[in-house]
């Protein structure tokens, strides 16, 4: 299928100075434009809240920014909402809005920026804010059949108090609860799948497949079974403890998440990480990406029942896990990042050994790739399956490999460089077909690219220290970001006067992409469902937090 992203070319991407100038001209006294701090380049404080949808539409569609997410914070006597936008190549823009506690109502931007839909639903569920004009609020993170109405667990209430009310918060499962069904037709029925399926080897997600005969009209994922309130339980804890949570809430990209967290703390402390640590972080981040992509490719082969290929890629993945463990002491790269650098250094012999393992894995992967591209029964199952066209991908703000397979070549490593990625030269792969096959090709290309980056990072290693002293300050806020294997990961942190976490916000790629997943699962044949799911490679636990 050839898709020309025509409507995407109507607007030109604006640089930050141009955005600031245009906003001042167009919106004048309704807002204040200033330089942001804590990782944000431009800060736009709104004086009149009703202007929020207009300004969001301007940033997303006219200035061609991507949407980052919403950070909600409860202050002394008002709510502070920060809407993040990324102007690729020039930095983060935040739109700040303050709402009095007495009337927690905010204008909804979902009609203008579709990607904000789930962020608003999340804030409504967890903070009890009301988004005026949003078509569907409620029953999101806190499942309606378990949680009573009116609970807003992320509100400013001490976590221990929440824990004490544990039994009161939970009411008995409501057997009469029914999901919302849309398809009304003679012979239509809804098929529930999950949250325990595939012998439990799938993640905890529930899918409601609304079908008419063999064809599935639409599939609605129900997530947040793994909701562990990571943002809430980090509150009141020291930074060293929050780091453990950042590392452990989503293991498939634990290094990227702990890195984004550490970058936020380092930005707050204004600490420069030693060059050796920066290169090692790039090395480890790319190792994680390579391992993750090998796993994702194995999953795709398995979903099409090509068992020999699936087994062989799975072997590659396990060997990469072992190589990671031999190199760092942990198969999933836990316990390495620390604010200021890395916990430990690696010898050049260890690096050479790692390179050997990586090269062996990648040459195997290369041979398998050629085999796969000549297996027509395999390609038939992937081509034209689960299509996300570039316009929808832009509309719903897809990030990561899934976005790049649909023409959205946004990559934080290049578009908002962190940790010295700016000095590395690499092309961000991009495909426009947006089908399962395009997503597979992107995974292969990125895996090879990661290998090259690992080689380059090792070449650039110079002797020196791997950590700088970094004491978290009293008071401070900062944003940290990293391109996780699945896409952009944002960690935002505010510390209180004693240096403890006051508010911690995690925005993940999976949260972004699960929202758009429904576009890929409209009017498809039932047997394609596992394949679409595998080519998306989304993590439920990273989304749920």
């Amino acid at each position: 299928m050839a898709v020309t992203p025509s409507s995407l070319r109507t607007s030109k991407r604006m640089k930050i100075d141009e955005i600031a100038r245009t906003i001042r001209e167009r919106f004048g006294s309704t807002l204040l434009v200033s330089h942001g701090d804590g990782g944000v380049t431009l800060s736009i404080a709104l004086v009149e809240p009703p202007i929020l949808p207009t300004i969001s539409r301007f940033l997303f569609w006219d200035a061609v920014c991507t949407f980052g997410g919403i950070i909600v914070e409860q202050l002394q006597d008002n709510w502070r909402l920060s809407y993040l936008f990324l102007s690729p190549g020039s930095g983060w823009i935040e739109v700040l809005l303050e709402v009095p506690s007495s009337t927690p109502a905010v204008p909804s931007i979902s009609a203008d920026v579709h990607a904000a839909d789930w962020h608003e639903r999340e804030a409504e569920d967890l903070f009890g804010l009301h988004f005026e004009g949003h078509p569907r609020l409620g029953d999101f993170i806190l499942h309606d059949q378990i949680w009573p109405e009116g609970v807003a667990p992320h509100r400013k209430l001490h976590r221990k108090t929440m824990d004490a009310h544990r039994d009161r918060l939970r009411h008995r499962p409501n057997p009469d609860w029914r999901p919302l069904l849309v398809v009304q037709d003679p012979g239509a029925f809804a098929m529930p799948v999950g949250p325990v399926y595939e012998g439990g080897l799938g993640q905890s997600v529930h899918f409601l497949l609304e079908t008419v005969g063999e064809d599935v009209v639409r599939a609605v994922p129900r997530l947040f079974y793994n909701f562990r309130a990571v943002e809430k339980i980090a509150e009141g804890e020291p930074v060293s403890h929050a780091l453990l949570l950042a590392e452990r809430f989503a293991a498939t990209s634990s290094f990227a998440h702990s890195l984004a967290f550490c970058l936020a703390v380092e930005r707050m402390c204004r600490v420069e990480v030693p060059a050796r640590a920066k290169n090692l972080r790039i090395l480890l981040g790319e190792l994680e990406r390579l391992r993750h992509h090998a796993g994702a490719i194995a999953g795709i082969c398995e979903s099409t029942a090509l068992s020999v290929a699936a087994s062989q890629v799975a072997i590659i993945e396990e060997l990469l896990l072992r190589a990671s463990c031999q190199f760092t002491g942990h198969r999933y790269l836990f316990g390495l990042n620390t604010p200021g650098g890395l916990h430990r250094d690696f010898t050049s012999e260890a690096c050479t050994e790692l390179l050997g393992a990586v090269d062996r894995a990648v040459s195997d992967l290369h041979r398998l790739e050629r085999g796969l591209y000549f297996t027509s029964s395999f390609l038939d199952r992937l081509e034209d399956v689960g299509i996300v066209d570039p316009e929808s991908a832009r509309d719903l703000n897809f990030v990561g490999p899934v976005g790049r397979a649909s023409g959205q070549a946004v990559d934080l490593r290049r578009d908002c460089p962190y940790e010295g990625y700016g000095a590395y030269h690499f092309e961000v792969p991009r495909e426009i077909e947006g089908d399962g096959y395009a997503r597979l090709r992107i995974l292969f290309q990125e895996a090879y690219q990661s290998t090259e980056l690992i080689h380059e990072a090792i070449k650039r290693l110079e002797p020196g220290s791997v950590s700088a002293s970094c004491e978290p300050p009293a008071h401070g806020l900062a944003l940290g970001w990293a391109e996780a294997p699945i896409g952009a990961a944002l960690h935002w942190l505010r510390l209180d006067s004693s240096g403890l976490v006051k508010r911690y916000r995690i925005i993940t790629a999976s949260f972004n992409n699960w929202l758009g997943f429904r576009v890929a699962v409209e009017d498809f044949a039932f047997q394609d469902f596992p394949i679409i799911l595998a080519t998306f490679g989304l993590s439920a636990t990273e989304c749920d937090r």
Partner: protein
Amino acid sequence: MSFWFWRGLKKGVQTTRYPRTAEVAAGVTPGRPITTDFRSVEAAVLAAGVCPVGAITARGKSAHVDLRLCIHCERCHFDGVRPLGWQADYEWATVPQGKPRYEPLPQAYGRSLHIIVVDAGDCGACLHEVKQLNNPLYNIHRLGMFFTASPRTADVLLVVGPVTENMRVPLLKTYEAMPDPKRVVAVGTCAVSGGIFGQSFVSAGGVSSVLPVDLEIPGDPAPPLAVLHGLLVVTGRKAAIRHEAVLERSA
């Protein structure tokens, strides 16, 4: 299709010899901190103080490790002024605290064990490690163990994750749908003790507060071979470790 057939054959046998002989390939396990003796009481207290989750306690001149609480941050090994000993083993399946011993499933299950897994709030690591058992390097089919799609045909329930509020009901339903005799195995530190997520308003803090647990496999995450050891214990093909023994054992 003959292409894949030959590729498969040419790869040869990759499977581990475990449980016949021990697996010694590098990187199959991250290892674990072990109870270590120091020269002075102060040193033991210093060593224990490094642990962010209280898995290490100082008793006299030695620092005792409770693997049920360990989240593998490795601070006690790499950061500490008094580093603890480290052992690269993987046979960690333990009888839960307060239970005298583990009662294996009858012998008929020895070579036909059907497994169901429930992700009750897992970070993805333990689930991924369990999934690796289907990989040719571990291949549990050769031992007569199978992942099954339905709880109705399952003999053993592997639970990963600390049991979140939203997963409590699906977990209980899965358990109740299983026929007797059945065994519940908590896989990973989160499932054993709540791990880093602990007990909170959304987390039960471990499977044992929801279901009777027969066997615990600690580790964050528990590596594939540790899970495999646990499954061998379930049918009595390997012996479980007593909880007290884990605390006392030292290098």
